[in-house]
């Protein structure tokens, strides 16, 4: 009986740690947040959080667009900033249509993902979404559809 109680207690603690622990994720900000003049013309900056060794994180992504009803996908131009774990995204997509940035990152065994919509005045923080996994195609398409309909701007 006592071993069952102990095992249950350990399980509860593990679940609590999962629920409240700081996992690997992204946070986004304006170019000035990068604290690096190189980011001056960037669309936005982002940084990794919850990564024990930010310099070793693997980051990639794509710019996903909906232009005249057609889906587009471009490799993303992500530049490392002087501070480890901080990056800037530079626009390499056209100004036409609706575009979001799809970010993916790994830190050790942990994975993070984000969808960052881009509006006429830059990235749209309120509509950005963050995941503990890569974003799915359905989630990307949903964000594009909302953006194209004028939502989230």
């Amino acid at each position, binding site marked *: 009986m006592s071993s069952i109680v102990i095992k249950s207690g350990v399980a509860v603690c593990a679940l609590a740690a999962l629920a409240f622990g700081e996992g690997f994720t992204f*946070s*986004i*900000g*304006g*170019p*000035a*947040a990068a*604290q690096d*003049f*190189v*980011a*001056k*013309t960037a669309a936005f900056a982002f*940084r990794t959080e919850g990564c024990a060794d930010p310099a070793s994180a693997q980051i990639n992504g794509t710019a996903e667009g909906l232009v005249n009803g057609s889906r587009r996908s471009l490799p993303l131009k992500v530049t490392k900033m002087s501070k480890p774990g901080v990056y800037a995204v530079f626009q390499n997509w056209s100004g036409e249509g609706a575009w979001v940035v799809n970010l993916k990152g790994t830190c050790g065994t942990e994975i993070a993902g984000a969808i960052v919509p881009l509006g006429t*005045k*830059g990235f749209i923080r309120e509509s950005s979404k963050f995941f503990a996994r890569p974003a799915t195609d359905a989630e990307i398409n949903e964000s594009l559809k909302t953006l194209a309909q004028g939502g989230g701007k």
Partner: protein
Amino acid sequence: MFEKHISRQLAAYLDDQLKPAKAERAEAHLTKCVRCRTGCEEVRTGMAAIGELPLVEAPETIWFSIQASLADERPRRRWNLKIAALVASLLLLALSGIIFPRVARPARWIETGAGSRAIITIGNIGSVEVGPNTRVRVVTDRPNEHRLALAKGEIIAKISAPPRLFFVETASGTAVDLGCEYTLHTDERGDGLLRVTKGWVSFDWKGIESLVPAGASCRTMPEAGPGIPYFDDAPEKLRQALNVFGAGKSADDSLGTILVEARVRDTLTLWHLLSRVQGADRARVFDRMVALTPLPAGVSREKALRLDPQTLQHWREELAWTW
């Protein structure tokens, strides 16, 4: 003030060899004296013509005759040669600016009319568009420092360079480029507005500094320097209250409005307010900031309230991720 003509100083004036005060007097004289202006143009033309002359090597026979002269009067010539070499070296060092650094001649003002604009190229780091009815001059133009003085009007600066290479002085402070594009408008008294479209600008005046990121603006005031930055999309009530606060009227009411209306993003404004208010008001600003966004690790209430520089800088760098 010069009453005599300055024909003997013209070459030195054109070659930036006059001391600043003398150069200014020369400049003032040239605006009034036709004779010296004409002389100045002649000297300038002559100097340009010399520069166009081809370089010709001296024939070897000249050296033979010099050697022969040296052999005849060797002891005295050697001593004189040493002195001459020393003088020549000193002259060369002086001309190169090593021992007598050149002092830049104050540049002329650029003044645009109601319907005109101008472009100033800033080294190879960018350009400045000068708007109508604007008076501006280049103060310094060196690889490690480019400095303009804006007396009145509007400029739009687009700079691509490491920070702190480009500066614009106004009557109410100096805009320090930190890698940016911005519009700076000022009148002769120093009342003005700095609006940043890309990057980040620091506006300094007598130890008071405002950091203005893209999407934000900052008023400047004579004898008070930079105001408190605010985002251009900040609530109208917040911006109005900031104007009232900045003018020193109804400070308590306006501070209350600023705090109530502030969004998370407006912690840009609140962070600057921290150092512009005292005592209980500072605590109110701090408490509102913490209510809007969690205090980052390493920032304590005690250190923030006593304006510890490292604490404030760290807090600002963290807050920037929410702006």
